[in-house]
């Protein structure tokens, strides 16, 4: 995923622009949590999806930490959501929100293990909608 982000960035300026924009919005979504002592990872994951399409980002999370997954999109009017599931596919998040170009989900892992951040494009005025995710932990 990260590789694809770099490849997208190298391919063409417009693509680079929208991935970069989505990433800026993802970082903006994470900003309130930085103020609460969360550290944002420098890595980011992103791409583009059609309406109702979903993408999974798989992460190893540790019991004892608290995480915020923050999503941003470059498309005005698009509604994207992010939710966190455990290795059995059960909803594992403590809370989630969606507002405008941004969305977020908080997870306090009950167990150390593999978790899945599921990104969904609920609606969008564009055929393809750029998105980016960052996560923060403390």
């Amino acid at each position, binding site marked *: 995923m990260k590789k694809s982000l770099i490849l997208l960035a190298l391919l063409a300026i417009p693509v680079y622009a929208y991935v970069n924009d989505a990433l800026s919005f993802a970082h903006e979504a994470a900003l309130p949590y930085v103020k609460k002592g969360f550290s944002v990872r420098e890595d980011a994951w992103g791409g583009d999806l059609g309406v109702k399409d979903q993408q999974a980002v798989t992460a190893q999370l*540790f019991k*004892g930490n608290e995480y915020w997954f923050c999503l941003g999109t470059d498309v005005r009017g698009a509604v994207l959501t992010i939710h966190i599931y455990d290795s059995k596919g059960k*909803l594992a998040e403590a809370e989630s929100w969606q507002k405008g170009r941004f969305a977020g989900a908080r997870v306090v892992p009950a167990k150390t293990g593999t978790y899945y951040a599921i990104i969904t494009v609920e609606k969008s005025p564009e055929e393809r909608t750029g998105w980016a995710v960052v996560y923060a932990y403390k």
Partner: protein
Amino acid sequence: MTKNIPLILALICLARLSPCSGQTAPESIDLSKFPGAEVEDVVVPVPSEIFSVLDKLGSPNWRSELRGSLGKNTGNRAQVALLLGTVIAEGFIAVEAEDSGKVQEIGREVLVLAEAINVRKAVIARSKSITEKADAKEWKAVRKEFDGALHDVRGAMEELGDDELAQLVSIGGWLRGTEVLTSIVSKNYTPDGAELLYQPQLIDYFNRKLDSLKNTRLGKDDLVVKIRKTLAAIRPLIGKDDGTKIPPDAVQRINKMTSETVAAITSRKES
């Protein structure tokens, strides 16, 4: 009770609604419907995430975990990449030990090793920042710089088309991190501490990456072969299901295996 059902339903709905979109999250999903690569390619945690948990578990003697020597650069690119990973991991231990001299030494060594694999430019600023922040004893900031150094090195290597070597940097860091983690957990065993080792999908991911190396020379490298064997031996020791208790003897065995592998990386004879 019947009168309250609509109210209860409304409250349940409210709890699950996103504040502005009205989108609900299903209580469960079928992960098999996602493409294999999506669910199998795991985001490798940065060392800070593990150290963040260790901070909450107590105050181990970090200074005793530091290695005297950071290891020898043999000029073999696979060894240098693995060594770089172990040295960056060492940086986190030095931060925990609040040893500014060691942190500065590690910051300089990161630069030397990065130069050996043509990514020096990517870490010059980080190295300088590590030195300055260690001098000022800004430990949280130093930790962030080491995370950033790992990210920058891997990013620069991927841009150069050295993706497979970049993976070795991550694996080197993971091995040294796991060696220290198991050492600390062994000295003061708790099930919560041992649970940090439960990383099955991450180990599978590393194994898949090493099994599918396109660079055949890299795939046949002695160290790479040794690491594959180590990962395969560790995998059954950490259990199959989330929450499986990892017993003290398993923690000790993982410590022995990772120690031997890290020793092989750091003391490899020149090829």
